[in-house]
């Protein structure tokens, strides 16, 4: 089973890399709207989600949906259990959010700072931030 899980994640990495390549290669000609659609696909590959499973623009909630899908738990339950336990670590959703932003920085060669990440509440804001940073990188 461990090997199946690893293969699934390696495939997901390949899928997300496909979107990184599309975004980076078409960067100069991509409109904000097209970028948003491609970036959504990238995020879905990273979070092992289908676009139709993303039912909110709230970025933290998207991270929660990803964690809950894996855990097969009702919305909010996993976060509540982890938070109530006062675990030394953050919740799974919070860790996913942080690791996703680190991956974006590495894979797109940009720098979404800690200040940026605190400011970003929605997926739309995240797209705006990354689109802008990619434009700045080009200049």
């Amino acid at each position, binding site marked *: 089973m461990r090997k199946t899980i690893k293969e699934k994640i390696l495939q997901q990495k390949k899928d997300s890399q496909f979107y990184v390549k599309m975004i980076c290669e078409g960067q100069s000609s991509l409109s904000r709207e097209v970028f948003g659609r491609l970036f959504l696909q990238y995020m879905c590959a990273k979070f092992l989600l289908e676009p139709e499973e993303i039912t909110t623009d709230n970025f933290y909630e998207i991270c929660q949906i990803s964690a809950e899908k*894996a855990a097969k738990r009702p919305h909010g339950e996993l976060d509540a259990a982890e938070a109530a336990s006062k675990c030394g670590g953050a919740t799974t959703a919070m860790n996913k959010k942080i690791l996703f932003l680190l991956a974006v920085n590495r894979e797109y060669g940009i720098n979404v700072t800690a200040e940026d990440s605190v400011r970003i509440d929605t997926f739309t804001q995240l797209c705006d931030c990354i689109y802008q940073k990619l434009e700045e990188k080009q200049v």
Partner: protein
Amino acid sequence: MSEQKRESMKQIEDDILADLLELEDQMSQYTFLVECGLELPEYPAALKKDEYLIHECQVNTWMHLEWIDDCLNWQGISDSLVICGALSLLMEIYNGRTREEIQNFHCSILEQPCFRVHFAQEQLKGLEYMVAKLYEHRLQSDCVHEQVAKADCECPFYK
């Protein structure tokens, strides 16, 4: 036909570490741990008692150890998905092993950066405590049946 030789505990540990390294980035490794955690066998509700609760873990985590046909049967569960993942991998290494195999095995996965990086200090302490508890359990059993001294313990976390 000869029986296929079972992998040693060390080989399984190395294989797990190789999987983590192959995944390379932290997000993929973290997802791997979480997904492995979902493969934990069901933990019996009857064993969710205070005596099996790991108080050294801040998150609710239970573990139950027993020997079946002289082989370890480690059951456990946690409210934290990533801790479940760690338990799942540790159980893959330890479950079904004899006292002798466990005594001769030096657990090093908790010391490896590709594993450690995914846990807060408090979480690592909890995991280390669980492994130490396992060795203690082995010793207690040995002390009753085989009179093995505690000094023989190979557990790197045993205090």
